[in-house]
């Protein structure tokens, strides 16, 4: 099978184009998409798609609450919108439509309504200051009626976006600015390689499954988005010290794949969860609590959370770097749980 090495931005673009070709109910809605001479959204994902689909790339005013509401209505009426925000932080403006309408509509209608709506949001701290930097996962994980995924490589990005488009439920996809592999004017300093060899032809990646990215026997390290990459780097270093870390890409934040995670924990008995974003009230809390419930008796020691400090995201690089969990902190946490 031939493959092409693509970054996340490119593979998402390909997924969107293929799904729009396959199903004419699919359309994109967001800010600064489909502008001739524009950038294809904030991170080039939709670049040029307006040429192929002039009627299905809806460039909105700056009105997040409104256009998520529009997407909600369109999905109810049989369309399959892909709505995106330029930065995840702006999801807070649309939170009412997402949480009160989009996620609940099926239930409160007694099952009458399907809401095949994909939402995409870039997250992560990248030198932009407090309001373009948050990790929003915590606010949407556990919202009943909503599926939440976070993609850490181009293969998953394409396959999960396609699965999301074909799902009859609302799906929130978190993407990380440092993983897009955006090029040219949209290149991000500090970016990490998240390219994959993308096979030709159609494939999907199921939404509810975690992925073991590296096998190991001493400690289970759980991460997603950028932190998954840092966790893999940490595992490399740990291996050099003789510590065998299993690294799992949590990937599906809602629902959590406790089967995959639990199977690992039952073998290792030690867990480190790595999350970008303040520690208190993060997704790691849910994972830690769930792991304890699922297989607490196998735990040799308390689950360790490596997360950001409980502060807004600082601008200055020296503090932003201190805010974001890094490889040394992950290594250190793994060493600590190895004491047990």
């Amino acid at each position, binding site marked *: 099978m031939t493959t092409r090495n693509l970054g996340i931005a490119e593979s998402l673009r390909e997924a969107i184009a293929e799904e729009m070709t396959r199903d004419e109910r699919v359309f994109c809605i967001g800010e600064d998409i489909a502008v001739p001479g524009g950038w294809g959204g904030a991170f080039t994902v939709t670049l040029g798609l307006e040429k192929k689909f002039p009627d299905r790339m809806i460039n909105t005013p700056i009105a997040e609450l409104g256009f998520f509401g529009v997407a909600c209505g369109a999905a109810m009426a049989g369309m399959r919108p892909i709505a995106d925000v330029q930065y995840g932080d702006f999801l807070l403006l649309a939170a009412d439509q997402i949480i009160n309408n989009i996620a609940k509509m099926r*239930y409160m209608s007694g099952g009458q309504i399907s809401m095949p709506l994909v939402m995409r949001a870039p997250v992560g701290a990248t030198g932009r200051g407090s309001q373009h930097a948050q990790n929003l996962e915590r606010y949407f994980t556990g919202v009943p009626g909503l599926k939440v995924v976070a993609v850490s490589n181009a293969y998953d990005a394409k396959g999960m976006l396609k699965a999301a488009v074909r799902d009859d439920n609302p799906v929130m996809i978190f993407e990380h600015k440092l993983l897009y592999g955006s090029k040219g004017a949209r290149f991000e300093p500090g970016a990490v390689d998240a390219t994959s060899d993308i096979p030709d032809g159609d494939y999907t990646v199921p939404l509810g499954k975690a992925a073991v990215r590296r096998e190991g026997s001493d400690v289970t390290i759980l991460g997603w988005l950028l932190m998954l990459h840092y966790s893999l780097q940490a595992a490399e270093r740990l291996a050099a010290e003789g510590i065998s870390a299993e690294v799992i890409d949590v990937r599906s934040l809602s629902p959590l794949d406790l089967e995959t995670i639990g199977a690992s924990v039952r073998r290792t008995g030690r867990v480190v969860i790595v999350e970008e974003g303040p520690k208190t009230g993060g997704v790691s809390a849910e994972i830690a609590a769930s792991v304890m419930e699922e297989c607490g008796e196998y735990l040799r020691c308390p689950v360790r959370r490596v997360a950001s400090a409980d502060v807004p995201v600082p601008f200055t690089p020296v503090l932003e770097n201190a805010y974001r969990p890094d490889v040394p902190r992950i290594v250190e946490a793994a060493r600590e749980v190895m004491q047990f």
Partner: protein
Amino acid sequence: MTASHSAPRDIAWAANSDAPGFLLGLYERMVMIREFEDGVKFLFLEGIMPGTIHQCQGQEATAVGVCTALRTDDFITSTFRGHGHALAKGLSVQELLDELFGASTGCCKGKGGSMHVGNMAQGMVPGIAIVGGGIPVAAGLALAFKMQRTDRVAVSFFGDGAVAEGAFHEGVNMAAIWNLPVIFVCENNLYGASTHVSRVMRDTHVARRVGGSYGIRAEQIDGNDVLAVYEAAKTAVAQCRAGNGPVFLELLTYRLTGHSRRDPCHYQPKEEREEWTAQDPILRFGAALVKRGLIDDAGLEAVKSRVRRDFEAAVQVAQRQPLPTTNDLTTDVFA
């Protein structure tokens, strides 16, 4: 600027909608809503019915006038105050009552409740109880209709209070720039909960404001004149079906009952209530029908009795309908 809001005294007769059956049908539908609301209020106050209620006595002409101009496959969005919209859009008294009693036979299987009644097959999205929340949703329905190249129309019902919400502006603006087939129906009943419109906007002529700002056709209409509402809606629907939407309709009306539950409406001046009570849309339309010789007072009374009997029978049924079981708690979350 509230002068414009005192309701006109006359019924504006529609030239071409005067088939007796049609007119009597409008009347009966309004009576059905009134009887439903009065009956539900009793059941609620007696503690027979659970939940909370927001009712529309006095506003029947808006729901009936607008929905009569729609096809079943046109969609409406509604609010916490949606019983009238539901009955006008053709939901049955039974499926509504069942829903209000929390029965699994209710239009939303008892999971929605009074604030969220709806039936997609009948063209009604479950009520969105977040003020203004249904407005962008209706624009989205209309966007779908347009992309699907159908001539279906979406209608969003909301109150004067919603005009202050950002969702209103975002939704109307998008509908305007994309020429969407959506009719925004503002039921201006002078109050958002206990707050008078003059406290929350400098200029209370909402249609003028919206028309001017968004560049769409916007009209202010006597919302207690069911035929005037119907005619305006018919014109708006035709405009939308022809691809020239959106349209904004401000319907001046008044809530003759509490905002919710046991609200005694002490914030409404007595004279104002009296003035509007005299403008009761059912009384006005009934009198007009009598004047036209289409029916007499006994006939009007007969309509009411028949409707009430049907309602009472439905209540009997509703109270015996099966309730969901706890197994139903976790169904209908995902498709």
